[in-house]
């Protein structure tokens, strides 16, 4: 069972590398990798071996997988997806990461 930790390690390392790069799109990719790593950690907190479906009537509870980490991962994926979409929108509006110069958003800047 060393595949899972190694995969998590590679994903997190790649994610952190991309987070340190300039440009929001790369950061978004970095966060995506990082959250995949986190999801694998969550999955491995249940039993990572092959198990039956955790549905009533389909598998004996003794053989069924742990449903809770799967529910965690599902929730986490939904949340990350929502924020990724928002960040891609931010990347489209701002064009660069400058906090010193006014971005051209097409709106009125008097306020």
């Amino acid at each position, binding site marked *: 069972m060393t595949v899972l930790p190694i995969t998590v390690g590679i994903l997190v390392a790649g994610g952190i590398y991309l987070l340190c790069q300039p440009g929001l799109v790369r950061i978004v990719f970095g966060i995506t990798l990082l*959250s995949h790593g986190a999801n694998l*950690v969550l999955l491995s907190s249940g039993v990572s071996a092959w198990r039956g479906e955790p549905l009533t009537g389909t598998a004996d509870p003794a053989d069924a997988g742990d449903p809770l980490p799967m529910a965690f991962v599902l929730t986490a994926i939904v949340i990350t997806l929502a924020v990724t979409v928002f960040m891609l929108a*931010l990347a489209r509006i701002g064009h660069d990461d400058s906090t010193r110069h006014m971005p051209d958003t097409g709106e009125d800047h008097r306020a």
Partner: protein
Amino acid sequence: MTGSLLPLLVVVPLLGAALGALVPGSIARVMLVLSPVLTTAGGVALLVTHGDTPVLAQDVGGFVAGIAIPLVSDTFTAVMITVTGLTTTACIVFALITGEARLRFFPTLVMMLSAGVNGALLTGDLFNLFVFIEVMLLPSYALIAMTGTWRRLGVGRLFVVINLVTSTILLIGIGLVYGVAGSVNLAVLTDMDADDPRFRLAVGVVLLALTVKAGVVPMHGWLPRAYPATSATVMALFSALHTKVAIYAVFRIHQTVLDGAAEWMTLLLVLFTLTMLVGAYGSLGERMVRRSLAWQMIAGVGYILVGVGIGTQLGLAAGLFYMVHHILVMGSLLLSSGAIEHAYRTNQFVGLSGLMRRERLLAVIMALGMMSLIGFPPSSGFFGKVGIARAVADLDGFQIWLVLGALLVASIGTLLAMSRLWADVFWGPPMEEMPSRGKGHTEPPVVPDDTRMRLRTLVPAGALLLMSLAIFVVPGPLWELCLQAADGLLDVTAYVETVTAS
């Protein structure tokens, strides 16, 4: 109030948020005011109930206890819900006065934010803490992007990235806790052996993520960058809700799950006293009212968390007392700054001068608010700091000198920073005769002679300040509540029994 009503504190603002997006703006704004008022009323009802029932719990979803989603309330929760509800009400009233609430989706976003806050305060389960923190953050991303100056866009990215990475760390920590303990229910986790190094490491990762969200030094840098770029209303909301929810979770998890483990207390105390010092002196480098106040928010985080570092009944109660004081006073100061911006269109030191003669009521409110931050009477800050100084006696040896010294030096730093703010903004020549001190883009704007603040823009700030003064005059009831809350954190038997029985 019974346990079965607890979900309403989340459901009502969430439903309001959904409806607020559909109905016309005027109706949405009525709902916007009602939602925090109802939250506050719920908080007060909980406080009354906890007089004789220490803990209320409700399992949502009808699963067996241990799997169901528990919502739990004790005195600590009730105090937090009441105070955050009050401050949210003040912020919303201010947004209505300045017209910010007329922005499309502002009511929806704020109601969603308060649903997330109430959920995070009530939940008795680590994973749902993560979910509710996300429910709280998603509308915040949008709020930061739609209010404030043009800097908000660049700064919004910073805020989103920091919070998302921190949430990922929190999620990893929760996964590790589940892997070690087989549960993420706080009541079940109290049975875990707190000396198991794997368990401690897992909970440590969770606490690390929460301290980043709280803005503890050395993970504080994002806060004074991000917050001042939004509008004053949104900054006041965030200051009352975001960092405080993270601090609440640190209090709760550290005390119930780890039983206040002793040997890393020195490390925690060093970090928290550093937070006090860096925050207090960080203001000195800033040349804008709200940026200066943002650093004082960090200092406040240090003062509050020192309570966890001390970890005794007095310490926890003093931390909680300071939190209540800090939420009220910071809200008052930020909304005063918002009133300045509403009338004078700037909060830079170069653009403001001689406000003391021009705006007497504002001067009184901000002077008292600043004295409260420093810890002078007559204000709640005085008793906040007295409480911490008293609790320090529970420590031993050099830790006493560490905390007392930091308390003193940090208060002097706040005094310096606030006198600078005062001298630049409230003293000096009248605004009409102000010489052009600006260079380049900081040229002060031309202010017409007859520009004055409208009295009503100061009402929310004044109301919050009055609460702070009331705490100075009658500190007894709040202190009793804080002691009761600290008892609940130290002795978790009632908490565990109620959660597992419901």
